[in-house]
């Protein structure tokens, strides 16, 4: 380690300057603006926060983010785990994992178009060009459904698109952790008469708990910030609004900078504890390595 007067500051200077301008200053300003009115002219106290928790639009957004939180997180993590464990037993493991991981490479906008096409709707009697309605009405003989418009299906339809994107991510991380479990441990349990089911629940899951926690918190952060998929596929219409999309609308369409700032602050407050836990665990893992 060297002590060197000015030199270190030349190295860290640019980073500190840019971070101050692009993250620190705007974050503090947004916090400040959240206590002001639409055009940031008059102090309005907690009005924007009261609106955030009482308006119909925001209540829908909170409800949907909660729905995402439960379904998306449960589906991505559990599917990722099951696929990681099963794929370990076959010879085509690596191509299989590539197929599941592939959606991580493309943009959420692109994925949005892919799934919008799967959900495409034509009135009954017309040829269905969307895969889901073709199966639904062609094979099952049901009335075609506008999956992204129908209020009882649209949130689920969006969540499925999200699951398609992120399951591969969960699978790859969990697969690495699974391969880290000593094989003797699993064999010993099998020799002692445990069946595969018991091995999975009594040994694999408890051993992988730290990694499962990291993957789960990462998915929770994704859910809190989910934006692109909703913006492209429904733009939050028909009861599919989410917090981040609402923030965008308040900022760009309604030009209500007070409310948009308040939503951003809520988002920050929701993310900080999850993210802090994630970074701490990441640090611990780095330390072990």
């Amino acid at each position, binding site marked *: 380690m060297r002590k060197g007067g000015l030199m270190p500051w030349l190295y860290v200077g640019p980073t500190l300057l840019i971070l101050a301008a692009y993250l620190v200053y705007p974050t503090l300003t947004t916090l400040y603006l959240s206590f002001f009115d639409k055009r940031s002219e008059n102090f309005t106290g907690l009005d924007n926060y009261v609106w955030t928790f009482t308006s119909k639009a925001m209540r829908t957004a909170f409800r949907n983010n909660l729905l995402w939180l439960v379904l998306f997180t449960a589906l991505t993590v559990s599917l990722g785990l099951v696929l990681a464990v099963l794929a370990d037993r076959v010879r085509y493991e690596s191509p299989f994992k590539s197929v599941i991981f592939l959606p991580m490479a493309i943009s959420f906008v692109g994925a949005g178009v892919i799934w919008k096409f799967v959900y495409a709707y034509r009135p009954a009697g017309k*040829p269905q060009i969307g895969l889901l309605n073709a199966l639904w009405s062609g094979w099952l003989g049901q009335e075609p459904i506008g999956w992204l418009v129908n209020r009882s299906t649209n949130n689920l339809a969006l969540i499925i698109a999200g699951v398609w994107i992120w399951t591969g991510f969960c699978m790859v991380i969990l697969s690495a952790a699974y391969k880290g479990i000593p094989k003797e441990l699993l064999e010993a349990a099998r020799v002692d008469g445990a069946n595969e089911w018991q091995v999975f629940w009594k040994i694999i899951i408890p051993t992988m708990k730290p990694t499962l926690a990291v993957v789960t918190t990462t998915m929770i952060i994704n859910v809190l910030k989910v934006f692109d998929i909703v913006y492209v596929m429904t733009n939050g219409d028909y009861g599919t609004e989410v917090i981040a999309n609402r923030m965008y609308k308040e900022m760009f369409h309604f030009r209500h900078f007070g409310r948009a700032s308040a939503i951003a602050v809520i988002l920050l407050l929701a993310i900080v504890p999850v993210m802090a836990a994630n970074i701490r665990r990441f640090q611990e893992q780095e330390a072990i390595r």
Partner: protein
Amino acid sequence: MSPRLSKTLSRFPIHIVLIGMGLLWLTPSVGLLISSIRPPDAVNQTGWWTVLPRFFETSQYTLRNYQEILGAQGMALAFRNSLLITIPSTIIPIAIAAFAAYAFAWMEFPGRQVLFVIVVGLLVVPLQMTLIPLLRAYNRLGLSGTFVGIWLAHTGYGLPFAVYLLRNFFGSLPRDLFESAYLDGASEFTAFFRLALPLSVPALASLAIFQFLWVWNDLLVALIYLGGTEQVAPLTLKLSSLVNSLGQNWHLLTAAAFISMALPLVVFFSLQRYFVRGILAGSVKG
């Protein structure tokens, strides 16, 4: 029954599940790709799966959709813009972060620990917290709708993660290496360029791929700082506006979507190892 056969039979359900899931995962993308090379009327009148029974009849395919979407609909311009945005937005933050990470790892200066903790702490800030003040500043400075503006924005957003990752990597290099280099009379500068950087090529590659894809696939940052300026819009922005303007013209939308995915797919297949490592390391990015 031979043990081998019974093993194969007992694995049968596993194969069913895995192959089924694999097909389920591939089908939506295959549908997109096939539709993008079918003539407009065919796409509108029949499902893409109807080509499967006579899959190798090339007369049912056409590249006209790509011609139209690249030319008249301006996807070629958007592709160029994506490159012009993404390449500097990958190089600038990594270059700046490498210097800072090196200082945090191997130099001594007052406030070193505290400053590093603050930099890492900034990982938790969601983009949304910064949009309004920055956009206002950009409007005043004339930076909105410019490439320079979005390069700087991506640099700001990418720095905390890049510094964090590189500082961890530099920090894990053996201390003796630097001590002996200094003893041999190497300057700080030489140690950085001749030792730290060459030894960190894998970490730099993973980071570069992560940042490249993050910027290439980004919608929100482009949406805010480039707004409605068609001349500078990248692929994601262009594609999302086509979703609204083209509506049910699926033959064009599918072609446009595929163009936006082409480069990431090439990166994925050619650099899969670095790609996966980059994505995994990037899981803590805010």
